[in-house]
């Protein structure tokens, strides 16, 4: 090779290197909307994930949901477990130029617990937040709480000075007459700044050149977000290359996307557990042919329902292989399910259990199911109806839009259901939330225990364990108690866990992006060629 060709090759190589490192624009489309820029207004995955671009919490969660230092560099817990001390990162600036200090943490704690906030549970009501110095904050708790910081990746820290200057010290409540400045503007410390935001239409983020993290893992200069509600249009936009990332890809379109030249589908289990619940409280089911008694109070009936359901068929036919059958009411990413197995699918055994329980000819009952909330939710319920028919139970399915469904089956609607399908992701990413909200007895009206326990399953021993789990700081002991509690509900056939549904993100072949099981599409780790 001549000197000239060497030079040319060197130039070409250099151009390639520069090309790959070049900052890029990433276009993203989601089914849902970024509803408000105020981080305390809406408690919803899509909105939180978006706000993770301009805003940051004291902690953050890594690619595998592990807890990492965020705006707090480190933290320590006092021996009695009542005081948590957070040491804040120094030299961090908000997008508006304000310094990040302990005042902002105290302010954010107050604001997130103010009326109108939808993230009031992030910082416990009884906790006192005390500034020690500019870069140290104490959280003083009325009782120990080993998972205090678990949800803080989405408890975003706002600037006190900025909020005060813009009359936004309170979040906008749902009955407001005037919105706050913060619902249309953002001022965080995060990797991206909000360049423009039109609610429900388009949001543009630009890279934050002054981010404290000097070695960002992404190579983006801009993110353009557009919500696209229509499934067909969203897939078309990905296939035609108009957007780089979409979420979700409808299950029936996965093959087509994978067959295309410029995009593929990232799939993986989601943290959400889909399960069936049975009314075990009423003396007579609301919609049933059985009068004068409630068949679900009989454990044999509950077991029969459990064993009548062929989870593998649901996986292969309804979910097209994209589900992970689950023995537990919590995802294995959050609590290991080793040692637990699902009760075996066995129609004959189920039929026999029904006969033993005194229903040789089966019975009839109503079932409530959403049809626009979870992946193929309506179809799952259809399949369940068919499977129960084989053991003689006639199910009258009422599949309805989520607006009506949740209004009917949750507490404000008076838990008006006999048999239902629901999905649950513990907001705290911890088993306690499931044991308390879903499996706790709801016999004490003064307590919020079991508020989402629609069927009213109740086991006092499980409740006692749950209370100990809340305050137990020793991880090994705590895990053992969680196992014991879950085993209790399994032995009771209190619930019928079905599966972890799958995430399906459509990603252009030019983009590399880790998929997190909590379904937060965060571009901090995205690389685009």
């Amino acid at each position, binding site marked *: 090779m001549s000197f000239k060709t060497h030079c040319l090759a060197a130039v070409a190589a250099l151009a390639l290197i520069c090309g790959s490192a070049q900052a890029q624009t990433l276009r993203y489309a989601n089914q849902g909307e970024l*509803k408000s820029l105020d981080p305390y207004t809406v408690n919803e995955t899509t909105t939180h994930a978006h706000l993770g671009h301009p805003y940051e919490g004291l902690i953050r969660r890594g690619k595998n949901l592990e807890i990492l230092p965020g705006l707090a560099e480190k933290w320590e817990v006092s021996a009695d477990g009542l005081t948590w001390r957070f040491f804040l990162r120094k030299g961090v600036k908000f997008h508006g130029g304000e310094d990040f200090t302990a005042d902002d943490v105290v302010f954010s704690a107050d604001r997130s617990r103010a009326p109108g906030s939808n993230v009031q549970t992030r910082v416990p009501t009884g906790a006192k937040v005390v500034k020690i110095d500019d870069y140290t904050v104490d959280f003083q708790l009325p009782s120990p709480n080993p998972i205090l910081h678990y949800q803080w990746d989405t408890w975003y820290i706002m600037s006190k000075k900025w909020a005060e200057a813009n009359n936004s010290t309170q979040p906008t409540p749902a009955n407001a007459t005037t919105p706050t400045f913060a619902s249309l503007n953002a001022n965080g410390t995060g990797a991206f700044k909000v360049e423009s935001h039109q609610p429900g239409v388009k949001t543009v983020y630009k890279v934050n050149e002054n981010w404290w993290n000097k070695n960002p893992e992404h190579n983006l200069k801009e993110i353009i977000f557009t919500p696209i509600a229509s499934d067909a249009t969203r897939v*078309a936009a990905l296939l035609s290359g108009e957007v780089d990332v979409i979420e979700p890809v409808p299950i029936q379109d996965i093959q087509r996307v994978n067959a295309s030249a410029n995009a593929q589908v990232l799939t993986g289990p989601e943290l959400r557990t889909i399960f069936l619940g049975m009314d075990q409280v009423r003396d007579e089911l609301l919609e049933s042919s059985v009068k004068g008694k409630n068949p679900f109070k009989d454990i044999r009936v509950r077991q029969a329902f459990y064993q009548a359901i062929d989870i593998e068929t649901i996986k292969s036919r309804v979910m097209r292989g994209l589900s992970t059958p689950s023995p537990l009411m919590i995802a294995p990413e959050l609590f290991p399910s080793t040692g637990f197995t699902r009760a075996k699918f066995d129609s004959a055994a189920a039929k026999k259990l029904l006969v033993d329980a005194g229903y040789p000819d089966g019975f009839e009952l109503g079932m409530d199911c959403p049809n626009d909330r979870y992946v193929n939710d309506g179809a799952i319920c259809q399949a369940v109806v068919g499977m129960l028919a084989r053991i003689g139970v006639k199910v009258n399915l009422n599949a309805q*839009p989520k607006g009506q469904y949740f209004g009917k089956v949750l507490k404000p609607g008076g838990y008006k259901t006999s048999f239902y399908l629901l999905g649950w992701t513990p907001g705290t990413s911890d088993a306690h939330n499931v044991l308390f909200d879903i499996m706790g007895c709801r016999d004490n009206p003064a307590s919020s225990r079991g508020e989402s326990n629609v069927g009213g399953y109740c086991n006092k021993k499980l409740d006692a364990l749950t209370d100990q789990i809340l305050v137990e700081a020793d991880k090994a002991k705590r895990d053992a108690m969680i196992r014991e509690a879950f085993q209790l509900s399994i032995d009771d056939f209190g619930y019928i866990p079905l599966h972890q549904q799958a995430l399906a993100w459509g990603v252009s072949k030019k983009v590399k992006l880790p998929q997190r099981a909590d379904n937060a599409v965060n571009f901090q780790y995205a690389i685009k060629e």
Partner: protein
Amino acid sequence: MLAFILRRLFQSLIVMLSVALIAFAMFRFVGDPVNQIVSIDTPQAQVAEIRRSLGLDDPFLVQFGRYIYNAARLEFGVSYQFRLPVISLLGERAPATLELAFCSALFSLAVGIPMGVYTALRRESPLAKLFQAISLVGISLPTFLIGILLIYLFSVTLGWLPSFGRGEVVKIGSWWTTGLLTGSGLKALILPSITLGLFQMTLIMRLVRAEMLEVLRADYIKFARARGLKTRAIHFGHALKNTLVPVITIAGLQLGSIIAFAIITETVFQWPGMGQLFLRSVQNVDIPIMAAYLMLISFLFVSINLAVDLLYALVDPRLRATVGAH
């Protein structure tokens, strides 16, 4: 005349109130708005507090009365989802819907009239038969299917036109945004305009064809032919001119329904207009947006009808007399 106008105004007001009442009653069946505002693990005490603060615990008539009182002062409240005033949300979306509606009306006229004229003049030609067949498609295929077919052909397969959105928009004045002044904005308008305008186009084509055939049979056309005028002059100078009068009336009236029925097209193309905002608000049980949108659309129809009635009365005194006699 004054009495007539007043009576018509009063009737319009009654219509608006009935629409509001029916819409408001329907909201009860959409679902529970509070569950869409809070997350599933929000403490129920807080849920109850939100429900109370929104006045959802009040009796139906109290809620309705409050709504009408506020609406009369042009207060449409704050969206539950976005926590922003409904008026500004709708105002922001209005330019997109109006531009789409006008473009699709323009498309339906620009394509529908020549097609109608052609099929009337050359009834037996193969092209005319093809146009007739296309018009059948336009009438029988649902809008969303047409939209998706166009997207697959022109966006995914050919890659010529965008599949969603408005492209780049330019701001005119304080709140009007337009896509008409940028290349990507114009390109983004093509597919949704065709989708939305196809039905109107078919309608206009068939109307023009029928009217034209009617007019061509009229005596003055025969006389014009007898006088030896050129066919071209007869067709376009005399026949078409007389055909267009009813067509323009219909096209004007149809504009209202284009705006109102843009919902499906806007959803398919993720067109950031009022229709899409409305559909999303139904899914999210965002009652303030739903109510304001329905009121706006009924206002649109009521005003168009009122204007038409008044114009007719102005033009035709007999109508005034008969209405007045009742």
